[in-house]
């Protein structure tokens, strides 16, 4: 059963905490990322609202913090997110969570 990373991108502020905590956890060099924030917008919408979403996307360097998991911890990104907008669990568990509200995504970076 694979694990998944859930992001509620309604609440991701693009603060880089996940990116930096990941780099530190995995000791990545400058210019390298285990999770990378992609941004859509800001783009003005027809109804005077704005589209502006940040979506942290795990990269090929992400192993869902296997080492941390073994010691009973969450992945570093999930642990440190100031907006509490990330969750971690099995695909089954996260699939239930992701359906509970709009603007959520789950990633399966590794199986």
């Amino acid at each position, binding site marked *: *059963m*694979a694990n*998944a990373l859930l992001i509620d991108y309604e609440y991701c502020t693009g603060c880089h905490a996940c990116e930096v905590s990941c780099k530190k956890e995995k000791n*990545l*060099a400058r*210019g*390298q*990322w285990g999770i*990378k924030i*992609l*941004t*859509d917008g800001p*783009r003005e*919408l*027809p109804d005077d*609202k704005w*589209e502006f*979403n940040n*979506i942290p*996307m795990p*990269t*090929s*360097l992400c192993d869902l913090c296997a080492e941390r998991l073994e010691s009973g911890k969450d992945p570093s990104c999930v642990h440190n997110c100031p907006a509490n907008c990330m969750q971690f669990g*099995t*695909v*089954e568990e996260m*699939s*239930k969570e*992701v*359906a*509970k*509200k*709009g*603007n*959520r*995504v*789950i*990633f*399966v*970076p*590794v*199986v």
Partner: protein
Amino acid sequence: MAKALMIDYEYCTGCHTCEVACRKSLGLDSGQFGIHILKDGPRQIEGTKKWELNYLPVPTSLCDLCAERSEKGMDASCAHHCPTHCLVVGNVEDLAIEVGKKANRALFVPLA
């Protein structure tokens, strides 16, 4: 039962088809998107010869998972037209099983 959009981003080539198909289907103006391709990379992975390059189509607040097309018995326009078949729209329950079968997949729930 919520519907979801599953993306196998190992195979998204960033070709804009989903963006344009969606825009045409929803009748959106130039500059508007119901799905928008974001990009990570290209970035050489340190110490290797490999490069990180991923495109990720992201549904926007204008996406309704093609409710009208669905009623007619058609697929969502993005999924229908994607040249690499990397987009699938379906029930969360069904796609939840699919998304776990392979790495580099994402499952979006744009609306509850």
